[in-house]
Each structure stands twice: as C-alpha cells, then as structure tokens.
C-alpha cells in the first residue's frame, strides 16, 4: 500500500464510510502495536530492534453487517484481512504478515441474552472473557472456560483456535461449550449455524469454523453453554516420585469417570522450577493438583476415590493447602516477571494423544529437544493439564536462557527446536497442537499432520474463501 497512496486513501475512505472515520486507523502508533500478537517470534523481533510488517488499516467494526461490508471491500481490492480479538495468541495467528485490513472485534462486546433456564449466554464475539464471566457470576452462573488468557482474550478468540481453559477436564474445551454461532463468511454472507449442536440433520459443518482461525470467516456472535457456580470446590495436591505412575493415576481417574475439574501434573523439572518460583513449594518429584467441584458430598466422594488411586500408586497426599494455593495463584504463572519472558527463548510445544502413547511421546519429545540442542543448554519442562476419557494433553515447553542476540539467528534456532519437537510429537502419535492453535508458527506442519486429507481442507478453503483474503499464511493455508 505504501507505493500507492492514492489507492490507499481510496480504500481508507471506503472503510470509513462503513464504520465511520473514528473507527479506521492508519496511525503509526496503532499500526505498530497491532503488528505483533503474543507469539514469541514477533515479540523477539521487536525486542531486537527489528520492524514487523504492520497492517495497513486497523478497523473497529460495530456489527456483523459492517464486517460484511469490510470483506466486500477486501474482496474487491484483494486485500488480506486479519481478524483480531485480544491479540493474546501464542502462535502468530493474528499477525498481519502481508499487511491489509486488521479487524479488531472488541467493539462488538455486548451480552445479547442470558437464558437462565437453558443455561446459555449469547454474546458478541468481541467481549473479553473475564468481563463476560463477571457478568455471569452476578447471576450465580459461569462460563467454565477459565483460560489463562481470559483477562485479555475475547470470546471469538477462544473459539477460533479451539482454546482450552483450566476446567476443561470436567467442562470441556471452548468448542464443547458452543451451541451456535453467527459467522461472516469471507465473501460477506452473514450466516447462523443451527441453534443446537447435537442433532442428526446432516453433517456437523458448524465445526468447520472452530479452529479455522478466521480462514473460513469471522465469528461475530456465539451462544455458549453455562454452568452454575459450584457449591463446593475441593482442591488437593499429591506428590509422586515416578511420573509414569502419576500418569497412570490420571488415566484411572479419567477412565473411571471421577469427573475432576482439573488434574494438573507437573513433571519433576517443572515442579522444581515453575512451581517453586510461583508457589514457593520445594518438592522433589512430580506435583499433581486435582480438584472436584459441584455438590459437596459428590465432590468429596470423587476426591476420596481419586486419592485411593494415588495411594495405590505411591502418591503422597500433600493435603488441601498446596491444592488451594495452586487454585488461588493458577494464573500467576503468566504475570511477568514470574512468566517466561524475553530475552529468553521459549516455546510451548503442547500436544495431545491417547493414554497408550502419552508416556512415550513425552520422553521422546524431551529427548529430541534436550539432546538435539545441548549446546544451547535447553531446558524442557512439562505439565499434563487437560485430560480426556481417552488421553491427555501435555503442555511441554522448551527454554533457552541465552539465545542468539541476532534476531534472524534466534528465529532460525527457534524454528529448529520447534521442528525437532514437532517431529517427535507426530512420530509418536501426537497432534501438533491441542489448544493454542496453528497460526503462523505451526502452519508449515499442517500438510504433514493431515497427509492425504490435507487437499480436502485446501479445497474447502478455496470454496469458502475464493480470493484467499482471510488470514493468509496461517493454519497451513497460503496466500
């Protein structure tokens, strides 16, 4: 756009006609701030004094209709469009790598309806999750998507990358809570998915938009399933000498449907570093936190059964305090300087697989990262935090405390570590991601992840977004 001021101004005028001049920005300051999201790669790039490609326009629409008109302009001029919620993604999914129009959805932040009979809320997608949660709490309700990013991420931002919150083990991922959505398709049509997700009226096409990261359209509204605020929440901590035995306890709890709201199992390295740093506990072993909520009697019984499994497999009951402390401070891990932060290099290579593969996957990834980058004194830490009836997610992370200072060299090293981790993950039956999404960071692994099925996804993309304007370069799709 810089080379064609005339055209740039023409487009700006058209966008202003749609949303009003106050809601289109080409200010240097805005372009700069919106040039990065929460991924390590762009943050490191700016940290080292390098500029990123900014968006050409930052637009703040107030309705689905306005988004539709913006997309009409984008199609006409073949301009990339990047949807933006809270900018809290770790995968570079909101980076405007080809410039274009960045659509910040946060003006669309209204709660449309709370149905206290069906326990649902319908809200615009730009609402910040914590604000929505506060509003629900005033009615004794909760949206049990308690993500670490809730203070900054939007409702749409939880759905677009298939996000997960702390309570997912009992209440599911964000995608499990959504009943229906309003979506603006890349070609401008405003559609609604069926009012309920569980039916037999044809294929489950509404799930196409979950995890598409804006590639198939922009989520503008969602109806979400709610729950009552629990009467009781019982937290407990257990320490294991043997990580594999702790994993087996988790499997037993899940396969016997004891319904924990959370099981968070830190490996020995994570226990001695992250848990020590944030919670102050100096445990030698694998620290496991588990919680049960709802009816006090049922929760207590579930907890008792779970503790029995822990005892059978050598777990040492640490009592309630270290569990409560974790619950009270569960997001403290993400506040700097407690969080991982620059100038370190780090990455969350989290993945998910079935119980039969999880231990092998963990050890294989750990070996690939630690042995492959021994010269960089890389650290590998992990916790197992989102459990299913069939398997578990491992939140694995690598940390290099003294990475190269040169930005390009640092980026290359970062990508090499990711390659090693992802190869180990895929070779051991894992998915390249469980809840942060694909974004730019993992885009290059999508073809391998899906193999023969990948062309089908490409065809769907071409059908829904014929001009390829939506979030180009992300989720495996090109420009």
């Amino acid at each position: 756009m810089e080379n064609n001021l005339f055209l740039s101004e023409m487009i700006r005028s058209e966008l202003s006609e749609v949303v009003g001049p106050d809601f289109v920005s080409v200010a240097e300051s805005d372009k700069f701030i919106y040039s990065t999201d929460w991924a390590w790669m762009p943050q490191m790039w700016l940290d080292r004094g390098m500029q990123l490609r900014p968006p050409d326009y930052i637009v703040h629409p107030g309705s689905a209709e306005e988004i539709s008109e913006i997309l009409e302009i984008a199609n006409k001029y073949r301009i990339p469009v990047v949807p933006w919620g809270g900018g809290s993604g770790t995968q570079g999914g909101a980076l405007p790598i080809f410039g274009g129009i960045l659509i910040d959805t946060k003006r669309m932040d209204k709660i449309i309806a709370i149905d206290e009979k069906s326990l649902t809320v319908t809200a615009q997608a730009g609402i910040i999750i914590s604000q929505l949660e506060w509003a629900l709490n005033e009615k004794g309700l909760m949206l049990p998507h308690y993500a670490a990013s809730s203070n900054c991420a939007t409702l749409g931002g939880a759905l677009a990358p298939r996000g997960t919150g702390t309570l997912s083990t009992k209440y599911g991922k964000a995608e499990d809570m959504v009943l229906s959505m309003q979506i603006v398709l890349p070609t401008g049509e405003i559609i609604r998915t069926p009012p309920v997700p569980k039916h037999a009226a044809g294929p489950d096409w509404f799930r196409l938009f979950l995890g598409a990261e804006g590639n198939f359209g922009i989520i503008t509204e969602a109806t979400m399933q709610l729950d009552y605020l629990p009467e009781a929440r019982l937290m407990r901590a257990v320490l294991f000498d043997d990580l594999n035995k702790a994993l087996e306890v988790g499997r037993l709890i899940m396969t016997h449907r004891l319904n924990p709201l959370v099981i968070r199992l830190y490996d020995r390295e994570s226990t001695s570093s992250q848990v020590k740093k944030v919670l102050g506990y100096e445990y030698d072993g694998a620290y496991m936190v588990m919680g049960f909520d709802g009816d006090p009697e049922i929760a207590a019984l579930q907890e008792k059964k779970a503790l029995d499994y822990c005892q059978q497999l050598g777990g040492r009951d640490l009592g309630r305090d270290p569990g409560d402390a974790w619950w009270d401070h569960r997001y403290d891990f993400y506040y700097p300087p407690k969080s991982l932060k620059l100038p370190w290099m780090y990455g969350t290579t989290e993945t998910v697989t079935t119980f039969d593969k999880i231990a092998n996957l963990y050890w294989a990834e750990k070996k690939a990262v630690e042995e492959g980058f021994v010269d960089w004194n890389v650290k590998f830490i992990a916790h197992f935090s989102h459990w299913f009836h069939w398997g578990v997610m491992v939140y694995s992370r690598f940390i290099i405390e003294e990475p190269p200072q040169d930005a390009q060299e640092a980026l290359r090293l970062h990508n090499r570590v990711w390659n090693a981790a992802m190869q180990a993950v895929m070779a051991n039956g894992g998915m390249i991601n469980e809840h942060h999404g694909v974004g730019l960071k993992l885009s290059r692994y999508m073809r391998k992840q899906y193999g023969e099925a990948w062309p089908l996804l490409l065809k769907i993309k071409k059908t829904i977004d014929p001009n390829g304007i939506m979030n180009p370069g992300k989720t495996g799709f090109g420009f």
Partner: protein
Amino acid sequence: MNEEKIMQPQTITATIENCRYCLMCRHVCPVGHVTRRETLTPHGWGLTIASVQRGLLTWNQDTVEVLYSCADCGTCRAYCVTDQQLPDAIAITRAEVAAQNLAPAAAYGIHTALQEWSNPYKRQVPETVNGQAEIALFVGDDAIYLWPAALESALKLLEAAGVKPVLIGMGRSNGHLASSLGFPDTAKMLVQTTLDELKASGAQRMLVLTPGDYYAFEHLLSDRLEVEWPVGVEIQEVISLLDIKFTAGILKFKSSDDKRPYAYIDPSHSLRIPARYDVPRRLLASVMSTAGHELFWRKERAHPCGIGALQFITPQISDHLTYARLADAQQAGAQIAVTEDPGCLSHLNRHADRFGLHVQGFYELLADHLV
C-alpha cells in the same frame, strides 16, 4: 527520604519490559475499555515506551498522544499480581517527554496555570490559611471551583459530628495532575505548600474529601515525589470519620422521601485505597429509603469518571469515561447517581441528562438529612 519507593531507572526499565508484552490487566483498563484500541492499554503503553527506547518509534504527535492517553487511574496496578508500577513509569516517561518540549501543548498550558494559580480552572491564587486546630481538612481545587456544595455540606456534617477542622489547601491542586502530566517539580511544589500549611496549623490529622486526595497524600508523595509526609500525622477520608461518628450514634440521619432508585459511583482512584468500598454505601443506606443499585464497574473494579489529566489532553477519552459511568448507572436501573468527589460530580453532571440521571452530591445528601 523515600528512596526505596521512588522508582529508580532500573525499576522503570524493568516495569516497561514486564508490561510491554503482558495482557493480564487488559480487561480492567478503563481507557482500553472505552476506546477498544489495543494501543491504549497498559500493554500498548509499555510497548510504545519500550519501542521508543529501541529506536523503533520516536516521540511525535501521534505517539505522545498515546503516552498521554493513560488515565493514571491505577487500575492496572491494582490488578497486577506482581505489582508493576506502570502508572508511575508512564508519569516518569511523560516527564522526560515534557522536558524535551514534546508534550501536548495543552499540558504546558495546564502546567503554567498550576505554577501560577495552583489550579487549572481559575486565575486565582489559593486563599491564605490561618488558624490552628487538631484536625485539618484539605480542600483542594475541585471542591472550590467545580462543586462547592460538597465542601459546604462536608463542613456541616463535620460540625454536627463535633469536628471543626482548619481548612488548608483551599483552591490548591493535590499535585496529582502535575505529576500525571509529567511535571513532578510542580507537583512537589504544590504538595510542599500544602504540607507547610498543615504544619502551621498544628493539626495531627488531615481529612480529605476524596479518594483522589487520599491517594495523592498517602501514596503519590512516596511513590513519585521526593516529599516526606510529616511523622505522626494521620490522613483520613471525611467519609471514614463520618462513618465512625454515625456508628457511635453521634451522627443521625432521617430517611429520605425520595423513592427513586440510586447507585453509588465509586470515585476515581477508589481502587487505589482498598477496603473503603463499604463505608459510603453504609452511610447512604442510612439515608436512602430504597436499596442501592450497583454498577458493573464498581468497588475493586471501579473505573474513573473522566477527571484528571485526560480532561485537558484527550477530552474525548475523558468524556467517554464519563459516559461509561453514566451508562453503567443507567443500565443498573438507577435514576440518581451519588458520589462524593467534586470533580466526578462536575463531570457526571455535565452529561447526566442524556442518560436520564440526576447527579447527587454525597455530602449534600447526608447533610440534608441530618437529624
């Protein structure tokens, strides 16, 4: 001196580096809430400052306006698990920008007014204070120039409670505005003059009318200005004293005939003073005949009402903060919005009609119902 509390260069750098990529207070930032601009959030301010330091941005009209769009309300810090002093770091950065003559023109105009008249509203020097008493009342400038009825009523209430304070700081800013605009020397001059008056009064306790004044003397002096608070002198909010007298049965109120639903609006800077939320509500409940409605942005998450530096530098953001408070009260079902801060009262009252609200001074309401 307060060297351990005043931000040192390394602390400022660490704060900016911590905040530039942290989004954990995004949900409570009032400016971010009304503008929806990522740039105008704690993360945006942190990244802007950090990027100027790295040569990626320069201070120009655009970026300086961003820097001066923070409300300096303290909400981010109140919600920060690691207590990052971002508002203080922004004030220090503004001081650097102002020293380079790069601050917005309006900032220099206000600065001149503060230097010459000690207030931004009227070309009038503060009244000279005479007299001594055990208790002093810091009046400030808003209560003189924006909402005088608050002072009159507060004095009536204090008299009924058996307290006759000597008035100090009549028409003088509490220093926060100068500090917030990036003129710490002027802020120091203003507070030092008030402290000289306090010393001359012989008072061992200084009452303040608002949470903003409490914050200024309890925290600003030590956090930003190298001014020492006099040893042995207590600061107390007037409403806190009234509450004690009410609880002791010294103050009595009759019930209001007004049946209209009301909401209490926590004044700006309230969340910088934890554990003060119940006191004004308790006093109001003793007068009002109906239960108070609660705003969404209340108590620990109370947003400012548009006063402070923003009203002079980016009045459109200031107005939106005021609108947001009024809209919040309206959505809560209130017809009367009650608060005690004279600045807030003035701002809210300016736009109340369009939200169908009547703005009521807290002190006036109580004074009108004294038994």
